[in-house]
């Protein structure tokens, strides 16, 4: 064993040099000519990994399915997954790494708006297009960047869809709003609350919680106040135990939630408690829309599980990205600006509806479904029935 630190450093350097230089020359020799890469950035480790991986898998499926066109033109197409660990600093460092790789022509990501906003500032430096499957925070597109688009809806749209439904269809007189203290959950919950109050619904309570397992202390006051509807702004892995525990404790209110509920795991976890609950989503149910059905089946066949929320959005986002690259590829070398411009011109009829971006990067018209859970069997998640359809355009920038 070498004890002397100087010699130790030298030995390490020698080993590194022996490995690094050949590897590097090899890397350069492979060359980048004719490769097109699509990157994903989402949390692949840590507590949010399930959703982050869903994004990666959705994009992967799309790339594998639609790369044929580009391959015919003589390009190699590859997906490069990055783990942003749901941390802004890691996301920004990855973003710098991504823009340094000239082959990467589009980014599908992120899960967290908190990571997406600083990272997209980096993509903007080189006009690298980012299509987000999940960032619902209005700020993401309100900055008006050419390279930033999103397939998912906005909080200020979806929250309103929910309250509209609670008011007009559920005939709710009183609601209790719970959210998960994240950008997404609190965002939709706040817009839901504001709009509900405007419509004359009484908001009996508005609570945020980071709790994941024990909801007893939150449920107790809800039970005492007995609202008509409970709206949960958040993701199914937190909402499902909440709904389950609420029913067990004898809460009889109806449940309503945003697209974070759209996962068969909701029924897997909460079982009978969520049968009959409603949720809003841009992705239609597999039973009605043939495209959605095909997607779910392919996803299951390839990865052996049902898609998470945002997997469908990521699939659409990657498809749009590939289409735009296709369009931009006319005649040899494509630039990132070309792809970014092409994305804005792309029209695509995806599994989450017709996709066309406005000048800010939002969907021109967002079609929202209100769906109802019909069975406590997770396998029948695709049978959820459409209760209502609403089309709402994003608000103009103030």
């Amino acid at each position, binding site marked *: 064993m070498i004890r002397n630190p100087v010699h130790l450093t030298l030995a390490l350097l020698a080993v590194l040099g022996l490995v690094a230089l050949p590897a590097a020359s090899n890397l350069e020799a492979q060359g980048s000519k004719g490769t097109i890469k699509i990157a994903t950035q989402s949390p692949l*480790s*840590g*507590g949010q*990994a*399930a959703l982050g*991986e869903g994004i990666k898998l959705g994009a992967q499926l799309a790339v594998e399915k639609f790369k044929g066109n580009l391959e015919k033109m003589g390009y190699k197409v590859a997906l490069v997954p990055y783990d942003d660990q749901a941390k802004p600093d890691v996301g920004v460092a990855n973003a710098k790494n991504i823009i340094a790789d000239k082959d990467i022509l589009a980014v599908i990501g992120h899960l967290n708006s908190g990571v997406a906003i600083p990272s997209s500032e980096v993509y903007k430096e080189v006009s690298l297009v980012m299509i987000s499957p999940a960032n619902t925070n209005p700020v993401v597109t309100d900055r008006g960047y050419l390279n930033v688009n999103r397939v998912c809806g906005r909080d200020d749209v979806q929250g309103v869809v929910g309250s509209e439904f609670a008011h007009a269809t559920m005939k709710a007189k009183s609601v209790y709003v719970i959210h998960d*203290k994240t950008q997404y959950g609190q965002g939709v919950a706040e817009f839901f609350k504001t709009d509900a109050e405007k419509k004359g619904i009484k908001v009996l*309570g*508005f*609570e*945020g*919680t*980071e*709790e*994941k*397992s*024990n909801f*007893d*202390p*939150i449920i*107790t*006051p809800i*039970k*005492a*106040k007995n609202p008509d509807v409970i709206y949960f702004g958040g993701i199914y*892995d937190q909402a*499902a*135990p909440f709904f*389950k*525990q609420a029913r*067990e*404790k*004898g809460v009889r209110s109806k449940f309503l939630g945003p697209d974070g509920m759209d996962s068969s*795991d909701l029924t*897997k*976890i909460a*079982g009978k408690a969520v049968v009959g609950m409603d949720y809003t989503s841009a992705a239609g149910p597999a039973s009605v829309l043939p495209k959605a059905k095909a997607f779910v089946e392919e996803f299951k066949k390839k*990865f*052996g*599980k049902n898609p998470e929320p945002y997997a469908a959005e990521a699939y659409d986002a990657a498809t749009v990205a590939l289409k735009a690259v296709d369009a931009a590829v006319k005649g040899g070398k494509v630039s990132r600006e070309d792809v970014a411009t092409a994305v804005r011109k792309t029209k695509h009829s995806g599994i989450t509806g017709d996709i066309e971006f406005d000048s800010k990067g939002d969907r021109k018209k967002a079609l929202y479904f209100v769906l109802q859970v019909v069975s406590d069997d997770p396998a029948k998640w695709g049978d959820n029935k459409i209760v209502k359809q609403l089309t709402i355009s994003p608000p103009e920038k103030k």
Partner: protein
Amino acid sequence: MDYPLLLGIFPQVLLDGIILGFMYALIALGYTMVYGVLEFINFAHSEIFIVGAFVGVEILLSLRSAGVLDTLPWPLVLLFVLVAGMAISGALAVTVERIAYRPLRTAPRLIPLISAIGVSFFLQDLIRLVESIWRNAFNLVYPTMDQLNYRFELTETIDVPVKSLVVIAAALAMLWVLHVIVNRTTIGTAIRAVAEDQAAASLMGIDVNRIISLTFLIGGAMGGAAGVLFGVQYGLINPYSGFIPGLKAFTAAVLGGIGNIPGAMLGGLVLGLLEAFAASYLSLLTAGAFGAEYKDIFAFSILILILIFRPKGLLGEVVRGRA
């Protein structure tokens, strides 16, 4: 202010807090056991704990797919699952000690802490790797057993499910068993001797390594049992869901006076009650200005206050420790 409402929910909130408190106490026992002997925060305990929960869910799921879950008597099933969870978590804790902590026993106190953090990261993703290959799932759901979900309605507004009573009973039983082991048996005497002075204990013919392994075995087994009960009580686990309860339980252990077994129980109860009352009442009392999201701040502020006046925790020794 709606006084009938405030008063009306009081008994239920009290009950919620007690149940949560016993849950924390169960996890805290593992921290306290190891700390009492080695003065070392076993940061990986939260993962050892959640491994127990995973063992439990795997057994229950296999029983279910074998179709015998509902035919077997539930106390038997629960007991079997508990024992299995305890065995595997205990074995894991011993292995972790052997590999990651024993080589560092003479190092300064913070060194094994970092090693424990490494173990914690490693185990989280190892569980995830195994489960994603085995079940291709991230979230695992405990199969429901109807008898465990049965609720006793005490009044129209207050009720308590059987599973929560099981948690309380198990916590009390484990406290008692630990108490007996540590205070009434030869092994317990050896454990206390090692805690007091390792060198002297080894001179007295005590195999220090064996006793420390045993401590980890007991602590890990407690964690495993807590994991199973956590799963039964709350129903949903994922590879990372041990982290937060672990942190809370560690807080509870310190609050009660770390290294002190009844202290862990008391600390857990205090923390559980604080959280329950904060989450239920803050919003009602402040007309929505502050809500359940402040429960951790509330709990930690009280913790800091308690520690200012009792720097060694509620039941901790007041004499100056070795630290």
